[in-house]
Protein backbone atom coordinates (compact mmCIF):
# COMPACT_ATOMS: atom_id res chain seq x y z
CA UNK A 1 0.00 0.00 0.00
CA UNK A 2 1.24 3.44 -0.85
CA UNK A 3 1.78 5.64 2.18
CA UNK A 4 2.14 8.90 0.36
CA UNK A 5 1.35 9.75 -3.20
CA UNK A 6 1.94 13.06 -4.95
CA UNK A 7 0.14 13.43 -8.25
CA UNK A 8 1.06 16.22 -10.71
CA UNK A 9 1.76 18.69 -7.94
CA UNK A 10 2.37 22.29 -9.02
CA UNK A 11 3.41 25.07 -6.69
CA UNK A 12 3.95 28.63 -7.85
CA UNK A 13 5.35 31.64 -6.03
CA UNK A 14 4.31 34.53 -8.24
CA UNK A 15 6.04 33.79 -11.51
CA UNK A 16 8.37 31.18 -10.08
CA UNK A 17 7.45 27.56 -10.53
CA UNK A 18 8.83 25.98 -7.36
CA UNK A 19 7.41 22.51 -7.97
CA UNK A 20 6.78 21.53 -11.56
CA UNK A 21 4.37 18.64 -12.19
CA UNK A 22 5.90 16.43 -9.55
CA UNK A 23 4.62 12.90 -9.07
CA UNK A 24 6.06 10.66 -6.39
CA UNK A 25 4.86 7.61 -4.57
CA UNK A 26 6.26 6.24 -1.36
CA UNK A 27 5.59 2.68 -0.25
CA UNK A 28 4.79 1.63 3.29
CA UNK A 29 7.84 1.33 5.56
CA UNK A 30 10.20 2.71 2.94
CA UNK A 31 12.99 5.20 3.38
CA UNK A 32 12.73 7.59 0.49
CA UNK A 33 15.40 10.24 -0.11
CA UNK A 34 14.95 13.48 -1.94
CA UNK A 35 18.19 15.00 -3.20
CA UNK A 36 19.07 17.88 -5.47
CA UNK A 37 21.05 21.09 -5.66
CA UNK A 38 20.13 24.19 -3.66
CA UNK A 39 16.87 25.79 -4.73
CA UNK A 40 15.65 22.60 -6.39
CA UNK A 41 12.39 22.73 -4.42
CA UNK A 42 13.01 19.94 -1.91
CA UNK A 43 11.89 21.91 1.12
CA UNK A 44 8.97 23.30 -0.88
CA UNK A 45 7.83 19.72 -1.42
CA UNK A 46 8.02 19.19 2.35
CA UNK A 47 6.14 22.36 3.07
CA UNK A 48 3.50 21.38 0.54
CA UNK A 49 3.08 17.96 2.15
CA UNK A 50 2.95 19.38 5.67
CA UNK A 51 0.43 22.00 4.50
CA UNK A 52 2.45 25.14 5.12
CA UNK A 53 1.96 25.94 1.43
CA UNK A 54 -1.21 25.53 -0.59
CA UNK A 55 -0.44 23.73 -3.83
CA UNK A 56 -1.77 25.27 -7.03
CA UNK A 57 -2.81 22.05 -8.70
CA UNK A 58 -2.43 18.32 -8.32
CA UNK A 59 -3.19 16.13 -5.36
CA UNK A 60 -1.44 14.75 -2.28
CA UNK A 61 -2.78 11.48 -0.91
CA UNK A 62 -1.95 9.86 2.40
CA UNK A 63 -3.07 6.24 2.56
CA UNK A 64 -5.34 6.94 -0.39
CA UNK A 65 -6.99 9.91 1.29
CA UNK A 66 -6.41 13.45 0.05
CA UNK A 67 -4.79 15.75 2.60
CA UNK A 68 -5.15 18.83 0.44
CA UNK A 69 -8.03 20.22 2.49
CA UNK A 70 -6.50 19.62 5.92
CA UNK A 71 -5.16 22.46 8.06
CA UNK A 72 -1.52 22.46 9.12
CA UNK A 73 -2.24 21.34 12.68
CA UNK A 74 -4.68 18.63 11.59
CA UNK A 75 -1.89 16.87 9.77
CA UNK A 76 -0.37 15.76 13.06
CA UNK A 77 -3.50 13.80 13.93
CA UNK A 78 -3.33 11.80 10.69
CA UNK A 79 0.23 10.84 11.62
CA UNK A 80 2.59 13.11 9.73
CA UNK A 81 5.52 14.53 11.69
CA UNK A 82 8.37 16.65 10.40
CA UNK A 83 11.66 18.16 11.42
CA UNK A 84 12.97 21.47 10.16
CA UNK A 85 16.08 22.46 8.22
CA UNK A 86 16.92 25.23 10.68
CA UNK A 87 16.13 23.76 14.04
CA UNK A 88 12.77 24.98 15.29
CA UNK A 89 12.68 23.86 18.91
CA UNK A 90 10.88 25.56 21.77
CA UNK A 91 14.00 27.13 23.22
CA UNK A 92 12.59 28.33 26.51
CA UNK A 93 11.02 25.04 27.52
CA UNK A 94 12.84 21.94 28.76
CA UNK A 95 13.60 19.03 26.43
CA UNK A 96 10.91 17.03 28.20
CA UNK A 97 8.31 19.73 27.60
CA UNK A 98 9.41 19.94 23.99
CA UNK A 99 8.70 16.26 23.54
CA UNK A 100 5.41 16.43 25.46
CA UNK A 101 4.15 19.15 23.12
CA UNK A 102 4.19 16.59 20.34
CA UNK A 103 1.60 14.49 22.19
CA UNK A 104 -0.86 17.34 21.73
CA UNK A 105 -2.56 15.79 18.71
CA UNK A 106 -3.78 12.84 20.81
CA UNK A 107 -5.26 15.10 23.48
CA UNK A 108 -8.78 14.27 24.60
CA UNK A 109 -9.28 16.61 27.54
CA UNK A 110 -11.12 19.88 27.32
CA UNK A 111 -10.24 23.41 28.40
CA UNK A 112 -12.13 23.32 31.69
CA UNK A 113 -10.71 20.03 32.93
CA UNK A 114 -7.23 21.36 32.21
CA UNK A 115 -7.87 24.51 34.24
CA UNK A 116 -8.86 22.34 37.20
CA UNK A 117 -6.25 19.65 36.45
CA UNK A 118 -8.73 16.83 36.97
CA UNK A 119 -7.71 13.20 37.32
CA UNK A 120 -8.39 12.67 33.63
CA UNK A 121 -5.75 15.26 32.73
CA UNK A 122 -3.31 13.77 35.23
CA UNK A 123 -3.73 10.28 33.77
CA UNK A 124 -3.32 11.64 30.29
CA UNK A 125 -0.10 13.37 31.32
CA UNK A 126 1.21 10.07 32.65
CA UNK A 127 0.31 8.34 29.38
CA UNK A 128 2.14 11.04 27.44
CA UNK A 129 5.12 10.63 29.68
CA UNK A 130 5.27 6.89 28.96
CA UNK A 131 5.36 7.54 25.22
CA UNK A 132 7.98 10.27 25.59
CA UNK A 133 10.19 8.16 27.85
CA UNK A 134 10.26 5.38 25.23
CA UNK A 135 11.51 7.89 22.67
CA UNK A 136 14.06 9.22 25.15
CA UNK A 137 15.34 5.68 25.69
CA UNK A 138 15.55 5.03 21.97
CA UNK A 139 17.54 8.17 21.21
CA UNK A 140 19.57 8.14 24.44
CA UNK A 141 18.48 11.55 25.66
CA UNK A 142 18.23 10.59 29.35
CA UNK A 143 20.74 13.15 30.70
CA UNK A 144 19.07 16.08 28.97
CA UNK A 145 15.44 15.79 30.09
CA UNK A 146 15.44 18.95 32.20
CA UNK A 147 17.86 20.98 30.06
CA UNK A 148 16.72 23.68 27.69
CA UNK A 149 17.54 23.25 23.99
CA UNK A 150 19.44 26.55 24.04
CA UNK A 151 21.91 24.97 26.47
CA UNK A 152 22.58 21.97 24.24
CA UNK A 153 25.13 21.64 21.44
CA UNK A 154 23.91 21.73 17.85
CA UNK A 155 24.09 18.00 17.22
CA UNK A 156 21.99 17.21 20.26
CA UNK A 157 19.38 19.77 19.28
CA UNK A 158 18.96 17.88 16.02
CA UNK A 159 18.42 14.69 18.01
CA UNK A 160 15.90 16.44 20.26
CA UNK A 161 14.03 17.62 17.20
CA UNK A 162 13.95 14.07 15.85
CA UNK A 163 12.76 12.87 19.25
CA UNK A 164 10.00 15.45 19.25
CA UNK A 165 8.82 14.29 15.83
CA UNK A 166 8.82 10.67 17.06
CA UNK A 167 6.82 11.55 20.18
CA UNK A 168 4.00 12.40 17.84
CA UNK A 169 3.77 8.65 17.02
CA UNK A 170 3.83 9.33 13.29
CA UNK A 171 3.16 6.99 10.38
CA UNK A 172 5.13 9.19 8.06
CA UNK A 173 8.18 11.14 9.15
CA UNK A 174 9.52 13.99 7.05
CA UNK A 175 13.16 14.78 7.85
CA UNK A 176 14.55 17.98 6.40
CA UNK A 177 18.35 17.70 6.21
CA UNK A 178 18.88 15.84 9.48
CA UNK A 179 22.59 15.49 8.75
CA UNK A 180 23.49 19.09 8.02
CA UNK A 181 26.02 20.52 10.44
CA UNK A 182 26.75 17.20 12.13
CA UNK A 183 30.16 15.60 12.68
CA UNK A 184 31.09 12.31 11.01
CA UNK A 185 30.30 10.21 14.07
CA UNK A 186 27.03 12.01 14.63
CA UNK A 187 26.09 11.27 11.04
CA UNK A 188 26.82 7.59 11.59
CA UNK A 189 24.62 7.63 14.68
CA UNK A 190 21.95 9.34 12.64
CA UNK A 191 22.06 6.72 9.88
CA UNK A 192 21.85 4.02 12.53
CA UNK A 193 18.84 5.70 14.15
CA UNK A 194 17.05 6.21 10.87
CA UNK A 195 17.33 2.49 10.14
CA UNK A 196 16.27 1.75 13.70
CA UNK A 197 13.21 3.97 13.51
CA UNK A 198 12.06 2.18 10.39
CA UNK A 199 12.63 -1.30 11.77
CA UNK A 200 11.55 -0.87 15.39
CA UNK A 201 8.76 1.66 15.03
CA UNK A 202 7.69 0.81 11.48
CA UNK A 203 7.64 4.41 10.32
CA UNK A 204 7.85 5.44 6.68
CA UNK A 205 10.50 8.11 6.21
CA UNK A 206 10.88 10.82 3.60
CA UNK A 207 14.33 12.33 3.81
CA UNK A 208 16.07 15.37 2.37
CA UNK A 209 19.82 15.01 2.61
CA UNK A 210 22.85 16.52 0.97
CA UNK A 211 25.34 13.98 2.27
CA UNK A 212 25.23 11.22 -0.32
CA UNK A 213 26.98 8.79 2.02
CA UNK A 214 24.08 8.95 4.42
CA UNK A 215 21.64 8.69 1.52
CA UNK A 216 23.38 5.60 0.17
CA UNK A 217 23.54 4.00 3.59
CA UNK A 218 19.89 4.34 4.57
CA UNK A 219 17.58 4.86 1.67
CA UNK A 220 15.64 2.33 -0.39
CA UNK A 221 14.82 4.75 -3.15
CA UNK A 222 16.14 8.13 -4.24
CA UNK A 223 14.50 10.89 -6.24
CA UNK A 224 16.56 13.73 -7.69
CA UNK A 225 14.99 17.14 -8.10
CA UNK A 226 16.33 20.02 -10.13
CA UNK A 227 14.53 23.36 -10.57
CA UNK A 228 11.32 21.83 -9.25
CA UNK A 229 11.38 18.95 -11.77
CA UNK A 230 11.85 15.30 -11.00
CA UNK A 231 14.81 14.24 -13.13
CA UNK A 232 15.63 10.79 -11.88
CA UNK A 233 14.36 8.08 -9.51
CA UNK A 234 16.02 4.82 -8.70
CA UNK A 235 18.11 2.85 -6.25
CA UNK A 236 20.77 4.78 -4.33
CA UNK A 237 23.62 2.63 -5.73
CA UNK A 238 22.81 3.76 -9.28
CA UNK A 239 22.81 7.43 -8.34
CA UNK A 240 26.15 8.37 -9.88
CA UNK A 241 25.66 6.30 -13.01
CA UNK A 242 23.08 8.71 -14.35
CA UNK A 243 24.52 11.52 -16.47
CA UNK A 244 21.62 13.85 -15.77
CA UNK A 245 22.09 13.57 -12.02
CA UNK A 246 25.81 14.27 -12.22
CA UNK A 247 25.08 17.20 -14.49
CA UNK A 248 22.53 18.66 -12.06
CA UNK A 249 24.87 18.32 -9.12
CA UNK A 250 28.26 19.21 -10.52
CA UNK A 251 27.54 20.90 -13.86
CA UNK A 252 28.72 19.87 -17.27
Amino acid at each position, binding site marked *: MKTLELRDVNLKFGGLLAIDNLSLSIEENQIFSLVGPNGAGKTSVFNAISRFYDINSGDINLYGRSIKQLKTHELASVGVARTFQNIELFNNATVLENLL*VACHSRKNTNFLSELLFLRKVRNQ*ELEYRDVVEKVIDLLELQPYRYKRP*SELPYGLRKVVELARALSLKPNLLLMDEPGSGLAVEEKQDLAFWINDIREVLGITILLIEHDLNVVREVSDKVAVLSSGKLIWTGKPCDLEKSNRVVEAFIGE
Partner: protein
Amino acid sequence: MKVLFRESYEQDLGLFRDNNQKFRYFLLLCLAVVLPFILGDFFLGEATLFLIWAIGGMSLMILVGHTGLASLGHAAFLAIGAYTTVLMQTKLGTPFLLSLILGGFLSSLVGVIIAIPSTRLHSIYIAIITLAIAILVDDIIVLSESLTGGVSGIYAPKIVILGVEFDRYSNIDRLYWLVLIILITLVLIYKNILRSPLGRAFIAVRDSEISAAAMGINVKKAKILSFAVSCFYGGICGGLMGHFSTVFNNETFNLLVSINLLLMIVVGGLGSIHGAFFGAAILTLLPVFIAIIRDGISSFFDVSFYSIPGLETFIFCLMVIFCILYEPMGVNGLRQKIRLFCELFPLGGKTFFSKQKSFLKTDRLK
Protein backbone atom coordinates in the same frame (compact mmCIF):
# COMPACT_ATOMS: atom_id res chain seq x y z
CA MET B 1 24.32 21.47 45.58
CA LYS B 2 21.06 19.70 46.11
CA VAL B 3 20.13 17.10 43.55
CA LEU B 4 16.50 16.21 43.12
CA PHE B 5 15.88 12.49 42.78
CA ARG B 6 12.76 11.64 40.88
CA GLU B 7 11.16 8.33 41.67
CA SER B 8 7.98 8.50 39.65
CA TYR B 9 6.61 10.40 36.70
CA GLU B 10 3.90 11.78 38.95
CA GLN B 11 6.50 13.77 40.84
CA ASP B 12 6.86 16.07 37.85
CA LEU B 13 3.13 16.76 37.86
CA GLY B 14 2.94 18.08 41.41
CA LEU B 15 2.42 21.73 42.28
CA PHE B 16 5.75 21.83 44.10
CA ARG B 17 9.16 20.52 43.16
CA ASP B 18 9.83 18.85 46.51
CA ASN B 19 8.76 18.91 50.17
CA ASN B 20 11.29 21.60 50.94
CA GLN B 21 9.67 23.95 48.45
CA LYS B 22 6.22 22.99 49.70
CA PHE B 23 7.27 23.92 53.23
CA ARG B 24 8.67 27.28 52.12
CA TYR B 25 5.45 28.19 50.31
CA PHE B 26 3.48 27.07 53.35
CA LEU B 27 5.50 29.49 55.51
CA LEU B 28 4.88 32.25 52.99
CA LEU B 29 1.15 31.50 53.09
CA CYS B 30 1.16 31.61 56.89
CA LEU B 31 2.94 34.97 56.78
CA ALA B 32 0.41 36.28 54.26
CA VAL B 33 -2.50 35.12 56.41
CA VAL B 34 -1.25 36.68 59.66
CA LEU B 35 -0.08 39.90 58.01
CA PRO B 36 -3.14 41.97 59.16
CA PHE B 37 -2.13 41.33 62.79
CA ILE B 38 1.39 42.63 62.16
CA LEU B 39 0.88 45.63 59.89
CA GLY B 40 -1.01 48.84 60.47
CA ASP B 41 -3.93 49.93 58.34
CA PHE B 42 -1.87 51.98 55.89
CA PHE B 43 0.62 49.23 55.12
CA LEU B 44 -2.14 46.65 54.94
CA GLY B 45 -3.82 48.81 52.32
CA GLU B 46 -0.57 48.82 50.34
CA ALA B 47 -0.31 45.03 50.75
CA THR B 48 -3.85 44.65 49.39
CA LEU B 49 -2.96 46.85 46.43
CA PHE B 50 0.11 44.67 45.87
CA LEU B 51 -2.05 41.54 45.73
CA ILE B 52 -4.44 43.20 43.26
CA TRP B 53 -1.56 44.29 41.03
CA ALA B 54 -0.17 40.77 41.24
CA ILE B 55 -3.42 39.49 39.72
CA GLY B 56 -3.03 42.10 36.97
CA GLY B 57 0.57 41.00 36.48
CA MET B 58 -0.47 37.36 36.14
CA SER B 59 -3.11 38.42 33.65
CA LEU B 60 -0.56 40.01 31.37
CA MET B 61 2.02 37.30 32.10
CA ILE B 62 -0.22 34.67 30.52
CA LEU B 63 -0.48 36.74 27.37
CA VAL B 64 2.99 38.25 27.08
CA GLY B 65 5.21 35.94 29.10
CA HIS B 66 3.71 32.62 28.13
CA THR B 67 2.05 33.09 24.75
CA GLY B 68 4.29 35.85 23.42
CA LEU B 69 1.54 38.26 22.38
CA ALA B 70 2.41 41.77 23.50
CA SER B 71 -0.58 43.74 24.72
CA LEU B 72 -0.27 47.50 25.19
CA GLY B 73 -3.88 48.01 26.15
CA HIS B 74 -4.54 45.66 29.00
CA ALA B 75 -6.08 48.45 31.10
CA ALA B 76 -9.08 48.26 28.78
CA PHE B 77 -9.86 44.76 30.07
CA LEU B 78 -9.34 45.93 33.65
CA ALA B 79 -11.81 48.74 32.98
CA ILE B 80 -14.38 46.37 31.50
CA GLY B 81 -14.06 44.16 34.59
CA ALA B 82 -14.33 47.09 36.99
CA TYR B 83 -17.33 48.74 35.36
CA THR B 84 -19.18 45.45 34.88
CA THR B 85 -18.66 44.42 38.50
CA VAL B 86 -19.79 47.74 39.94
CA LEU B 87 -22.68 48.31 37.54
CA MET B 88 -24.00 44.79 38.11
CA GLN B 89 -24.00 45.47 41.83
CA THR B 90 -25.59 48.91 41.71
CA LYS B 91 -28.05 48.53 38.81
CA LEU B 92 -28.99 44.86 39.06
CA GLY B 93 -28.18 44.16 42.67
CA THR B 94 -26.27 40.94 42.04
CA PRO B 95 -23.99 39.81 44.89
CA PHE B 96 -20.34 40.85 44.77
CA LEU B 97 -18.67 37.53 43.96
CA LEU B 98 -21.09 36.75 41.15
CA SER B 99 -20.67 40.18 39.60
CA LEU B 100 -16.89 39.93 39.93
CA ILE B 101 -16.88 36.62 38.06
CA LEU B 102 -19.31 37.93 35.46
CA GLY B 103 -17.07 40.97 35.04
CA GLY B 104 -14.21 38.57 34.39
CA PHE B 105 -16.28 36.66 31.84
CA LEU B 106 -17.40 39.78 29.99
CA SER B 107 -13.82 41.00 29.83
CA SER B 108 -12.83 37.57 28.58
CA LEU B 109 -15.53 37.68 25.92
CA VAL B 110 -14.32 41.06 24.68
CA GLY B 111 -10.79 39.66 24.68
CA VAL B 112 -11.88 36.73 22.51
CA ILE B 113 -13.71 39.03 20.08
CA ILE B 114 -10.54 41.08 19.71
CA ALA B 115 -8.35 37.99 19.51
CA ILE B 116 -10.22 36.39 16.61
CA PRO B 117 -9.10 38.93 13.98
CA SER B 118 -5.77 39.74 15.64
CA THR B 119 -4.48 36.15 15.64
CA ARG B 120 -3.64 36.76 12.00
CA LEU B 121 -1.16 39.38 13.14
CA HIS B 122 2.25 39.11 14.73
CA SER B 123 3.86 40.71 17.76
CA ILE B 124 4.03 44.48 17.33
CA TYR B 125 0.84 44.62 15.29
CA ILE B 126 -1.12 42.91 18.07
CA ALA B 127 0.34 45.52 20.42
CA ILE B 128 -1.00 48.25 18.13
CA ILE B 129 -4.48 46.68 17.99
CA THR B 130 -4.68 46.38 21.76
CA LEU B 131 -3.47 49.97 22.09
CA ALA B 132 -6.34 51.05 19.86
CA ILE B 133 -8.78 49.04 21.98
CA ALA B 134 -7.53 50.76 25.14
CA ILE B 135 -8.16 54.19 23.66
CA LEU B 136 -11.55 53.06 22.34
CA VAL B 137 -12.68 51.73 25.73
CA ASP B 138 -11.56 54.98 27.35
CA ASP B 139 -13.73 56.94 24.90
CA ILE B 140 -16.70 54.62 25.31
CA ILE B 141 -16.59 55.12 29.08
CA VAL B 142 -16.60 58.91 28.69
CA LEU B 143 -19.33 58.91 26.04
CA SER B 144 -21.78 56.57 27.78
CA GLU B 145 -22.00 58.96 30.70
CA SER B 146 -25.50 57.99 31.79
CA LEU B 147 -24.33 54.48 32.59
CA THR B 148 -20.69 54.88 33.61
CA GLY B 149 -20.74 58.36 35.10
CA GLY B 150 -18.24 59.50 32.49
CA VAL B 151 -15.39 61.68 33.69
CA SER B 152 -16.87 62.22 37.14
CA GLY B 153 -16.68 58.50 37.80
CA ILE B 154 -18.82 56.10 39.85
CA TYR B 155 -18.77 54.92 43.44
CA ALA B 156 -18.21 51.25 44.17
CA PRO B 157 -20.77 49.96 46.65
CA LYS B 158 -19.74 48.15 49.80
CA ILE B 159 -18.80 44.51 49.40
CA VAL B 160 -21.10 42.31 51.44
CA ILE B 161 -20.76 38.54 51.35
CA LEU B 162 -23.19 36.54 53.54
CA GLY B 163 -23.75 39.51 55.79
CA VAL B 164 -20.05 40.20 56.35
CA GLU B 165 -18.84 43.61 55.22
CA PHE B 166 -15.58 44.15 53.40
CA ASP B 167 -14.78 47.83 53.38
CA ARG B 168 -11.52 49.49 52.59
CA TYR B 169 -11.73 52.08 55.35
CA SER B 170 -13.44 50.37 58.23
CA ASN B 171 -12.18 46.79 57.93
CA ILE B 172 -9.26 46.60 55.54
CA ASP B 173 -8.09 43.32 57.08
CA ARG B 174 -11.17 41.48 55.81
CA LEU B 175 -10.74 42.97 52.34
CA TYR B 176 -7.12 41.84 52.40
CA TRP B 177 -8.11 38.27 53.23
CA LEU B 178 -10.77 38.26 50.54
CA VAL B 179 -8.27 39.42 47.92
CA LEU B 180 -5.76 36.88 49.21
CA ILE B 181 -8.24 34.02 48.75
CA ILE B 182 -9.10 35.14 45.22
CA LEU B 183 -5.41 35.52 44.42
CA ILE B 184 -4.53 32.03 45.66
CA THR B 185 -7.37 30.51 43.62
CA LEU B 186 -6.11 32.31 40.52
CA VAL B 187 -2.50 31.25 41.15
CA LEU B 188 -3.61 27.62 41.46
CA ILE B 189 -5.52 27.85 38.17
CA TYR B 190 -2.48 29.46 36.51
CA LYS B 191 -0.26 26.69 37.83
CA ASN B 192 -2.73 24.09 36.50
CA ILE B 193 -2.62 25.71 33.08
CA LEU B 194 1.17 25.55 33.09
CA ARG B 195 1.32 21.85 33.91
CA SER B 196 -1.42 20.81 31.48
CA PRO B 197 -1.28 20.55 27.67
CA LEU B 198 -2.78 24.03 27.42
CA GLY B 199 0.22 25.73 29.01
CA ARG B 200 2.60 23.79 26.81
CA ALA B 201 0.61 24.89 23.79
CA PHE B 202 1.00 28.52 24.90
CA ILE B 203 4.76 28.11 25.34
CA ALA B 204 5.04 26.33 22.00
CA VAL B 205 3.21 29.16 20.23
CA ARG B 206 5.51 31.68 21.89
CA ASP B 207 8.74 29.95 20.96
CA SER B 208 7.99 28.80 17.42
CA GLU B 209 4.66 29.09 15.71
CA ILE B 210 5.52 26.94 12.71
CA SER B 211 6.76 24.01 14.70
CA ALA B 212 3.80 24.35 17.07
CA ALA B 213 1.53 23.99 14.06
CA ALA B 214 3.57 21.04 12.77
CA MET B 215 3.22 19.36 16.17
CA GLY B 216 -0.56 19.50 15.96
CA ILE B 217 -1.31 22.63 17.96
CA ASN B 218 -4.06 24.83 16.60
CA VAL B 219 -2.12 28.09 16.84
CA LYS B 220 -5.16 30.28 16.36
CA LYS B 221 -7.13 28.48 19.03
CA ALA B 222 -4.23 28.63 21.46
CA LYS B 223 -3.91 32.39 20.97
CA ILE B 224 -7.64 32.93 21.46
CA LEU B 225 -7.66 30.80 24.62
CA SER B 226 -4.69 32.74 25.90
CA PHE B 227 -6.56 35.99 25.35
CA ALA B 228 -9.62 34.52 27.06
CA VAL B 229 -7.78 33.41 30.20
CA SER B 230 -5.67 36.56 30.35
CA CYS B 231 -8.66 38.88 30.00
CA PHE B 232 -10.58 36.92 32.62
CA TYR B 233 -7.75 37.55 35.08
CA GLY B 234 -7.66 41.17 33.93
CA GLY B 235 -11.39 41.56 34.56
CA ILE B 236 -11.05 40.15 38.08
CA CYS B 237 -8.11 42.47 38.75
CA GLY B 238 -10.11 45.44 37.48
CA GLY B 239 -13.14 44.57 39.59
CA LEU B 240 -11.04 44.38 42.73
CA MET B 241 -9.15 47.54 41.84
CA GLY B 242 -12.43 49.41 41.33
CA HIS B 243 -13.60 48.36 44.77
CA PHE B 244 -10.26 49.15 46.30
CA SER B 245 -10.22 52.70 44.98
CA THR B 246 -13.94 53.08 45.96
CA VAL B 247 -14.45 55.78 43.33
CA PHE B 248 -13.07 55.51 39.82
CA ASN B 249 -13.44 57.00 36.36
CA ASN B 250 -11.90 56.45 32.95
CA GLU B 251 -8.59 57.92 34.20
CA THR B 252 -8.17 55.06 36.70
CA PHE B 253 -7.62 52.74 33.74
CA ASN B 254 -5.68 54.98 31.38
CA LEU B 255 -2.86 54.10 29.05
CA LEU B 256 -0.26 54.53 31.77
CA VAL B 257 -1.77 51.59 33.65
CA SER B 258 -1.32 49.33 30.63
CA ILE B 259 2.27 50.43 30.21
CA ASN B 260 2.94 50.06 33.92
CA LEU B 261 1.58 46.50 33.77
CA LEU B 262 3.81 45.66 30.84
CA LEU B 263 6.92 47.21 32.40
CA MET B 264 6.06 45.51 35.67
CA ILE B 265 6.24 42.02 34.25
CA VAL B 266 9.36 42.82 32.25
CA VAL B 267 11.11 43.99 35.42
CA GLY B 268 9.70 41.07 37.39
CA GLY B 269 10.79 38.50 34.84
CA LEU B 270 8.89 37.29 31.81
CA GLY B 271 7.69 33.73 31.64
CA SER B 272 7.11 32.90 35.31
CA ILE B 273 4.40 33.43 37.93
CA HIS B 274 7.09 34.71 40.29
CA GLY B 275 7.83 37.49 37.84
CA ALA B 276 4.31 38.89 38.15
CA PHE B 277 4.65 39.02 41.93
CA PHE B 278 8.11 40.60 41.91
CA GLY B 279 6.95 43.19 39.40
CA ALA B 280 3.83 43.99 41.43
CA ALA B 281 5.94 44.30 44.57
CA ILE B 282 8.27 46.78 42.90
CA LEU B 283 5.44 48.78 41.40
CA THR B 284 3.42 49.14 44.59
CA LEU B 285 6.11 49.16 47.26
CA LEU B 286 8.58 51.47 45.52
CA PRO B 287 6.51 54.66 46.18
CA VAL B 288 6.04 53.61 49.82
CA PHE B 289 9.73 52.89 50.16
CA ILE B 290 10.66 56.25 48.66
CA ALA B 291 8.22 58.03 50.99
CA ILE B 292 9.72 56.33 54.03
CA ILE B 293 13.27 57.26 53.00
CA ARG B 294 12.19 60.84 52.29
CA ASP B 295 10.55 61.17 55.69
CA GLY B 296 13.63 59.67 57.32
CA ILE B 297 15.95 62.13 55.61
CA SER B 298 13.80 65.16 56.35
CA SER B 299 13.41 64.32 60.02
CA PHE B 300 17.11 63.43 60.39
CA PHE B 301 18.45 66.64 58.83
CA ASP B 302 15.53 68.69 60.09
CA VAL B 303 14.71 70.06 56.66
CA SER B 304 11.35 69.90 55.01
CA PHE B 305 11.59 67.82 51.90
CA TYR B 306 8.92 68.27 49.28
CA SER B 307 8.06 65.23 47.30
CA ILE B 308 9.74 65.25 43.91
CA PRO B 309 7.09 64.61 41.27
CA GLY B 310 7.87 61.69 39.00
CA LEU B 311 10.65 60.25 41.16
CA GLU B 312 9.00 56.82 41.33
CA THR B 313 8.52 56.72 37.58
CA PHE B 314 12.14 57.77 37.11
CA ILE B 315 13.50 55.00 39.33
CA PHE B 316 11.12 52.50 37.78
CA CYS B 317 12.27 53.41 34.29
CA LEU B 318 15.90 53.13 35.35
CA MET B 319 15.12 49.61 36.55
CA VAL B 320 13.51 48.76 33.22
CA ILE B 321 16.58 49.96 31.33
CA PHE B 322 18.85 48.02 33.68
CA CYS B 323 16.75 44.90 33.14
CA ILE B 324 16.80 45.15 29.37
CA LEU B 325 20.55 45.72 29.25
CA TYR B 326 21.84 43.39 31.94
CA GLU B 327 19.15 41.04 33.17
CA PRO B 328 16.68 40.01 30.48
CA MET B 329 14.90 37.62 32.81
CA GLY B 330 14.17 40.36 35.33
CA VAL B 331 14.18 40.10 39.11
CA ASN B 332 13.15 36.46 38.91
CA GLY B 333 16.18 35.69 36.74
CA LEU B 334 18.40 37.52 39.21
CA ARG B 335 16.92 35.49 42.05
CA GLN B 336 17.61 32.21 40.25
CA LYS B 337 21.17 33.25 39.48
CA ILE B 338 21.90 34.31 43.04
CA ARG B 339 20.44 31.05 44.27
CA LEU B 340 22.52 28.96 41.87
CA PHE B 341 25.60 30.97 42.78
CA CYS B 342 25.05 30.29 46.49
CA GLU B 343 24.40 26.59 45.92
CA LEU B 344 27.63 26.15 43.98
CA PHE B 345 29.46 28.76 45.99
CA PRO B 346 33.18 28.31 45.39
CA LEU B 347 32.68 27.01 41.87
CA GLY B 348 30.75 29.87 40.28
CA GLY B 349 32.80 32.13 38.02
CA LYS B 350 32.43 35.35 36.16
CA THR B 351 31.35 33.75 32.89
CA PHE B 352 29.10 31.31 34.68
CA PHE B 353 25.82 32.84 33.53
CA SER B 354 26.78 34.03 30.08
CA LYS B 355 25.08 31.06 28.47
CA GLN B 356 21.76 31.62 30.19
CA LYS B 357 21.36 35.08 28.75
CA SER B 358 18.75 34.11 26.22
CA PHE B 359 15.89 36.40 25.36
CA LEU B 360 12.31 35.32 25.20
CA LYS B 361 10.86 36.03 21.81
CA THR B 362 8.52 38.64 23.24
CA ASP B 363 11.35 40.58 24.84
CA ARG B 364 12.31 42.04 21.55
CA LEU B 365 8.91 42.34 19.95
CA LYS B 366 10.36 40.55 16.97
